């Protein structure tokens, strides 16, 4: 069983990472990655929605019939998004103002929908929640990475305003890596989003290719000996 969870974790975080391999949830991952903090906040909001919807759909999987499932998935995720929207408005108001339109738009994010359709509507409670957790973490990882790359090149900072948006405890991770006027503005503007995502997908393919080659070499050695 623990082996299953390891596969779920590896799949969710890397092999079928929502953004880098499946190209799902592109809108928030482009719009909300002008800084690492925004990306992290957006990722966490989506993570909560994915876990909650996976939990609910898995709980009710026996009563949801095939014909009406899409409508039920949509309503379930709309309700959970409303809850997250209100909770963020109350407790993380600064972050809520930055993310703005993209919190309600989690409803039409394909990622929670894809997990409901292909996983949690068929699986028991625990694996569904674990799968939701790792899919969400993979999404958060992708958004934070994209945000970090764009922020470092674009404005020379990393996790700027984290204390303002996420709470004073995050003051320690704010840093400035490049001097004030070294930033390349285009990376923060819309074209930078497309460019960074394109290059990060190439980087992921490169890493996959390397590890595949290493695995082949490792399996080739014993057969020679």
């Amino acid at each position: 069983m623990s082996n299953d969870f390891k596969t779920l974790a590896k799949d969710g975080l890397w092999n079928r990472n929502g953004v880098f391999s499946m190209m799902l949830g592109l809108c928030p991952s482009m719009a909300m990655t002008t800084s690492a903090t925004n990306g992290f906040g957006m990722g966490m909001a989506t993570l909560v929605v994915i876990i909650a919807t996976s939990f609910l759909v898995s709980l009710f999987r026996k009563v949801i019939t095939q014909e009406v499932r899409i409508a039920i998935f949509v309503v379930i995720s709309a309700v959970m998004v409303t809850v997250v929207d209100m909770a963020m408005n109350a407790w993380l108001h600064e972050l809520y103002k930055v993310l703005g339109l993209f919190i309600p738009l989690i409803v039409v994010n394909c990622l929670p929908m894809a997990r409901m359709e292909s996983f949690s509507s068929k699986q028991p409670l625990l694996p569904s929640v674990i799968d939701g957790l790792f899919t969400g973490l993979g999404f958060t990882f992708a958004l934070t990475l994209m945000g970090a790359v764009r922020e470092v090149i674009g404005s020379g900072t990393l996790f700027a305003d984290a204390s303002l948006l996420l709470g004073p405890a995050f003051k320690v991770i704010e840093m400035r890596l490049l001097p004030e006027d070294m930033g390349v503005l285009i990376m923060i503007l819309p074209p930078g989003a497309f460019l960074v995502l394109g290059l990060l997908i190439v980087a992921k393919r490169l890493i996959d290719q390397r590890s595949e080659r290493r695995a082949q070499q490792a399996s080739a050695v014993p057969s020679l000996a």
Partner: protein
Amino acid sequence: MKEMLLMMVSAALVNNVLLARFLGLCPFMGVTSRIDTAAGMGLATTFVMTFSAMMDWTVQHYLLEAYDLGFLRIVTFILVIASTVQFSEMVIRKVSPSLFRMLGIYLPLITTNCAVLGVALLVVDAKMGFLASILFAFASALGFSLVMIIFAGLRERLVLAQVPGLFSGAPIALIVASLLAMAFMGFSGIGTI
């Protein structure tokens, strides 16, 4: 009149839904491999976006605000959009079977197009009037269709280009989209609102 026109130019070109607001990227990456499918998707989206903005505006003003049900906004809007899509599917099938055959599977897909929900929410958040909302949604949808068709044209040529193996498929398309977004940045400053 002049204000309305400037608002429409701004919605279609300057703050283009795809390249500046990042709404509706799934069909942008998904159905732009050929020009005719991209045009079909653009046409269907234009219809749904305009119509659902109209419906959502009415629901927001006469139902949600009148009865203080603002917290139900997300659930209501998504249901309104889903039924609009269903309704337009029935209308198009009755009125023009040839158009229906052309749009095919793209119609149901529009429900999950975040540009439709996004524009409806933008209209409500900006507290626009009824006419302004419809024009804003229509202009946004025109901008959406324009970029879909341009991008499909670029991708049709891209298939013939020799691309390094690692870049083939999605990455090179994203980089082309980046260049297109740069071109559209040239519109910034026209008719800002």
